[in-house]
């Protein structure tokens, strides 16, 4: 691994100042992607700014309307929190499916969505639940946050503080895992909100997480598996690689959507 300088700010203001001043500075959240990436030589920041000491980013709050997850909240904490399991069971379940137990003890929501890996789980929850990403300077709707593979609306030096998810019991996340990496070959987050259905797909699209609007409209009219008949995601928009061909991923998206629907029907 290339050399770098390690800084550990004590609060958010100091972290932002370090990021402004640092050349080639990168924030370090849980490090479960960044550290392996640096070990492989695929990233080589000159300064690492460890966000682990920032109390402002650590909290997890359940309010009457929202579940607000601090950017540095590890997946294991979200998966185990009784408040999250009650208010938004699908969110807790998704957090419990990320990586493995050790990754979940360190990995954070802020790190996951700032990285926006096309096969990561949390981007699907943000998009499916219509979350708001709160940064040090503004609120960003999930629809405006994810801009394609590894791209987000974050500006240089901007830090995620928390993610606010509207409470939603009628939601489910189904994921078809790559058995080695635990990443999604395809993952579908289906949520039924008062104002309509949202379906977010991760792992499958060539341009990262996306909404399957055609199926959203169909399920909005009639929330049954038969409403999906005849629908398909365009194969040309699907990833194809040694793990799964594009047409197989397109098939998985539809199968997982139907299974998510079945989970929601059982739950309600």
């Amino acid at each position, binding site marked *: *691994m*290339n*050399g*770098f*300088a*390690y800084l*550990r700010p004590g609060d958010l203001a100091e972290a932002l100042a370090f990021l402004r001043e640092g050349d080639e500075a990168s924030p*370090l959240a849980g*490090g*479960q992607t960044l*550290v*392996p990436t640096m*070990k*492989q030589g695929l990233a080589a920041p000159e300064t*690492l700014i*460890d966000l*682990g000491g920032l109390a402002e980013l650590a909290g997890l709050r359940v309010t009457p309307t929202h579940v607000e997850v601090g950017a540095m909240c590890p997946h*294991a904490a979200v998966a185990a929190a009784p408040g999250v399991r009650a208010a938004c069971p699908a969110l807790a379940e998704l957090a419990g499916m990320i*990586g*493995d*137990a*050790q*990754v979940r*003890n*360190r990995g954070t929501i802020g790190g996951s969505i700032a990285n926006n890996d096309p096969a990561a789980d949390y981007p699907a929850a943000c998009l499916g639940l219509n979350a708001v990403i709160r940064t040090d300077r503004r609120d960003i709707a999930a629809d405006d946050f994810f801009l394609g593979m590894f791209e987000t609306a974050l500006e240089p030096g901007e830090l995620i503080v928390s993610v606010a998810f509207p409470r939603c019991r009628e939601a489910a996340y189904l994921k078809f895992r790559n058995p*080695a*990496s*635990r990443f999604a070959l395809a993952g579908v987050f289906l949520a039924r909100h008062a104002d309509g259905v949202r379906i977010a797909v991760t792992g499958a699209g060539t341009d990262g997480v996306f909404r399957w609007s055609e199926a959203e409209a169909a399920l909005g009219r009639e929330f049954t598996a038969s409403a999906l008949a005849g629908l398909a995601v365009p194969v040309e928009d699907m990833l194809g690689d040694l793990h799964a061909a594009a047409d197989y991923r397109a098939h998985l998206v539809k199968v997982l959507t139907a299974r998510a629907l079945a989970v929601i029907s059982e739950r309600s």
Partner: protein
Amino acid sequence: MTRLTLELNGRMVTDDVEDRTLLVDFLRARQGQTGTHVGCDTSQCGACVVHVDGVSVKSCNMLALQCAGRKVTTVEGLAQDGVLHPMQQAFHDNHGLQCGFCTPGMIMSAIDMVERHGPALDEATVRHDLEGNICRCTGYENIVKAILVGAKVMTA
């Protein structure tokens, strides 16, 4: 170089480390605690699992400096006064290994598993929660058996 102080297996240690030092390299090369193994280069195998403040982590995926002021426990820190930890004893009694390379990580993950699930830990949960620990010899049968026995002793 940065000065690092942390608690390792019950004793305070201070050392000057390069900022880029991984926790696993600090443990093995600087502290001579070679019970923690490196089995892969992709953070997938789990041979390097240790506890930081009582929670299992992959020490190849964390910087040593991220542990400043914290409590790190490796497999060497489990036995007390020459008596094996119940989980170590259970691996011994049930032959929960073949070559033994993955064993330190298995044991550290197993103890964390018992801490999380308590007496409710069952076989299906053990198999699921071992998803971050890879064994290429045994087929896991005796590892699972050992963890269930160790859990029983730990929660008795």
